[in-house]
């Protein structure tokens, strides 16, 4: 049940999806992998929307060079754990939700447990090996993976529904080399909003998800386009997905 305070807080968005929708958001548990450039705007907007349970995972401490884009962290947080900083800000933004933070590296061996009973995973990572780990967990648990990535003024996003859509490894079977990428804060801001919008739509069961479509944004040209994607039957991650119950964690 929503409290009076929550009703007031969410009044303007409940005009869109009512008590029922807001209750769906309140009951939801979303796993946000990363509290950096993408994780910052995603977690802030999911918190203000009233997603009842957020888990945020990051292993880093705040560095001065993060502050041009990682809006969860302030100058005074330099040297502090990003998870600690994120928890403080998100709870201050919305004390009516539950925020759980975990200071660790997401790896094959811990990812299934970290994700736990979440309803969906937001990919706010900065490298493909970690993304492939999240992709595998999403497939195993049959929960969506909301992918986003950025470089400079370019960004991309897609929504992966295991068993129904192309997975991350169908779309990008091979990782590009790891490198220090240029970035200006507005790009993860924009792509993070695409991801957060997808999370809301998925939980509310409304609208058309960004499935089997790779959204591509070129900020310099102010141009968005999408490329259709399809499942790869030979995909090493989801190719043998049979869609039968029993392998959930």
């Amino acid at each position: 049940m929503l409290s009076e305070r929550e009703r007031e807080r969410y009044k303007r968005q409940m005009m869109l999806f009512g008590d029922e929708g807001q209750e769906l958001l309140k009951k939801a548990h979303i796993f946000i992998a990363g509290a950096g450039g993408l994780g910052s705007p995603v977690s802030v907007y999911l918190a203000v929307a009233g997603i009842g349970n957020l888990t945020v995972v990051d292993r880093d401490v705040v560095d001065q060079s993060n502050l041009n884009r990682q809006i969860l962290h302030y100058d005074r947080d330099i040297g502090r754990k990003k998870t600690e900083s994120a928890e403080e800000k998100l709870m201050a933004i919305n004390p009516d939700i539950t925020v759980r933070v975990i200071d660790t590296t997401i790896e094959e061996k811990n990812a299934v447990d970290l994700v736990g009973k979440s309803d969906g995973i937001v990919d706010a990572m900065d490298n493909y090996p970690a993304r492939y780990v999240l992709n595998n967990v999403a497939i195993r648990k049959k929960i969506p993976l909301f992918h986003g990535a950025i470089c400079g003024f370019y960004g991309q996003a897609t929504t992966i529904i295991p068993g129904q859509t192309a997975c991350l490894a169908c779309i990008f079977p091979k990782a590009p080399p790891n490198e220090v990428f240029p970035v200006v804060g507005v790009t993860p801001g924009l792509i993070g909003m695409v991801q957060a919008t997808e999370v809301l739509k998925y939980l509310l069961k409304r609208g058309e998800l960004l499935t089997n479509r790779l959204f591509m944004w070129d900020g310099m040209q102010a141009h968005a386009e999408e490329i259709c994607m399809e499942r790869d039957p030979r995909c090493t991650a989801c190719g043998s997905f049979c869609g039968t119950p029993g392998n959930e964690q």
Partner: protein
Amino acid sequence: MKVRVRFFARFRELLGTDIIAEVAERTTLPDLIKQVAQKNIEGHHAIFDEHGQFREYVILMRNARRIDTADAAKNVVADGDEIAVFPPVAGG
């Protein structure tokens, strides 16, 4: 004959986009991309390795259909084709 080549992200920065290329009959997909990428050595290097093979992470689309880079040489381009070439964007 004319084909349209579209690059995205880093490839676009190095090579531009929406390129209309004039190509000879029986030009294959790798030959087309090499021809267009010739103008910028860094762009060429971003797409092809030292053996002239597509780097393994390069994504190729022909008329909105995915082409496996390993099979690209079997694809002869046709007049009016639209080819998209892009890398996975990785940052977060």
